[in-house]
């Protein structure tokens, strides 16, 4: 199924200009998303997941800049584009048509003053010049695909007339109507309750099978990761510290942070009465990161050598980790 990477992020750095100088939000983000697969980007709040996804789509806030790195994207026509340096005029043709995005908050991500048909149909107008009855027909078909009941009637609804789950289906319809190659889903189910969450995940998996797109799935929920992802990239304090196929990552977490993260998830197969393990300390503020491994101050295995900068390396095929003691972490487990 895999036909080479559709997106390779290499050494991405993003800084935000502020009154007190530049704040680095992403220090070193590198990962690879293979075509047709789902890569989960996991990490705590503030680890830089959302900034990464916005950077890929060229939608960083005005005071945010990509200061280093490449976003190598293989366009539909076969060209390799560096999204970090793509002019806005060219980016507009990619955005929505080749790469689209669904957001965390279905309640606020849709414009309250336009009908959902109008908002979905706008994609067809922008990218295919389609208008009128043909456009309406395509939108109704898409609403059907995302399993919205009575689509011919619902197309004229306003967002406030729909539930959160239905709105997220609308967002998915909007994102997928131009059949993009890459879908970025930024915590698409976090704001939904559990049953609706499962339905939305099912829907996304089905649509991925039917349409064959790649998904970058941003989440902090390891349960969702297990359910959705083919590969996982773990972020900590603005850097990817481990990337591996999902089964490999769950079976052999090689970074102390990943291990701590997995140990902190409640699981039904754990012996009763066993306490959940919390990672000591908290994520350091972005302004005051150590020059070496950012996790070192909280790491039980830290040594003086961890003060040196550390990059991702292959620990075995397909499994990359940014820890000098990864072998010991593995052996210990």
């Amino acid at each position, binding site marked *: 199924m895999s036909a080479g990477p559709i997106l390779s992020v290499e050494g991405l750095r993003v800084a935000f200009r502020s009154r007190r100088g530049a704040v680095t939000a992403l220090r070193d983000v590198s990962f690879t998303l293979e075509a047709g697969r789902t890569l989960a980007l996991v990490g705590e709040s503030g680890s830089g997941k959302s900034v990464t996804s916005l950077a890929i789509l060229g*939608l960083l806030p005005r005071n945010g800049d990509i200061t280093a790195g490449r976003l190598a994207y293989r366009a539909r026509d076969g060209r390799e584009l560096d999204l970090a340096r793509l002019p806005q005029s060219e980016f*507009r043709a990619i*955005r929505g*048509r080749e790469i689209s995005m669904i*957001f965390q908050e279905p309640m606020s991500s*849709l414009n*309250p*003053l336009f009908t959902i048909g109008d908002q979905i149909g706008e994609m067809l107008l*922008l990218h295919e010049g389609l208008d009128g009855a043909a456009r309406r027909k395509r939108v109704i078909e898409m609403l059907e695909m995302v399993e919205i009941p009575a689509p011919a009637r619902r197309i004229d609804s*306003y967002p406030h007339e729909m539930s959160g789950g239905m709105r997220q289906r609308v967002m998915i319809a909007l994102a997928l109507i131009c059949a993009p190659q890459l879908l970025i889903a930024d915590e698409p189910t976090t704001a939904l309750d559990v049953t609706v969450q499962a339905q939305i995940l099912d829907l996304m998996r089905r649509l991925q099978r039917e349409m064959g797109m790649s998904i970058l799935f941003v989440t902090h929920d390891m349960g969702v990761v297990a359910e959705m992802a083919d590969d996982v990239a773990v972020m900590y304090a603005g850097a990817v510290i481990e990337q591996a196929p999902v089964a490999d990552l769950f079976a052999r977490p090689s970074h102390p942070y990943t291990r701590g993260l997995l140990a902190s998830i409640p699981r039904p197969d754990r012996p009763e009465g066993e306490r959940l393990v919390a990672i000591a300390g908290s994520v350091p503020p972005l302004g005051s990161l150590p020059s070496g491994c950012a996790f070192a101050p909280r790491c039980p295995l830290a040594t003086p050598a961890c003060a040196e900068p550390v990059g991702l390396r292959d620990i075995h095929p397909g499994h990359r980790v940014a820890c000098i003691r990864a072998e010991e972490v593995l052996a210990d487990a």
Partner: protein
Amino acid sequence: MKLYILKRLVGMVVVVFLVLTIAFVIVRLAPGDPAALMLGPDATPADAAELRARLGLDRPIPVQYLTFIVNALQGDLGQSLFFNRPVLSVLAERVEPTAFLALFSLAISVVIALPLGIFVAYRRGSFLDQSAVSVAMLAASVPSFWTGLVLQRYLATDLGWFPASGYGGPDATFLDRMGYLMLPSIVLGIVNSALILRFTRASMLDVLGEDYIRTARSKGMTEGRVVLRHAMKNAAIPIVTVVGLTFALLVSGAVVTERVFNIPGMGNLVVGAVLRRDYPVIQGTLVVVATLYILINLAVDLLYLVIDKRVRY
């Protein structure tokens, strides 16, 4: 919806009734005798008493009040003491300059404030943004008579671009008369654009930070489309509100500018009427202005329905 409009119209009748009452009381609380003022300093007390009787001012206040209300309900606002004609016909003559002055000023302030407000919100924090906000503050703080006098001096007297004052002679054509309104409209337009600019900017700033704006950008449209289609409609409600209020204020509040430019509008009329204690004209003007004010506000509230389908009355 129909019920809502009906309710509002009933409310309007109540407010107009209150305005009538307050107008009636206030003009009579002011010291001064209209008869004595009309006859001048040489009149004898007997002359004044006779004139008062002729004008019906000698009757007890409650009787005058009842007569006034009953006539007003029939659409008769009484006779002007000074012009000796029905108040409504006096007012009708003065509506044209005031109405067009209000319309032109509103148009000018919207044309200045709306695009500028949108642009500086988009470029928030920029030099242009900061200067626009400061200039708007300044324009709003300077009294309109000062702006009026300055522009009159330079644009009309020195450069001769506009007539300095007045409303044309009796044989002036409609276009001539509108020409006389240009400079006062610019003055009022500048003064009022400050408020609209600030509302537009604040409202746009709020909206541009919303999630659905990010969604719009993610769809691959131009920034112009993001701002003018997706943001503008959402920012419209506060802007429509302040434009409506500005219009209502312009209709009722152009008194000073009308004085400075010597325009025979309702503002000038009411000032003259107050000085002459022409009770019926003062009352009539207040009622007409209050009614207009309420109607404009009703129109604004109904516009909300058009803009935002979530609004329900």
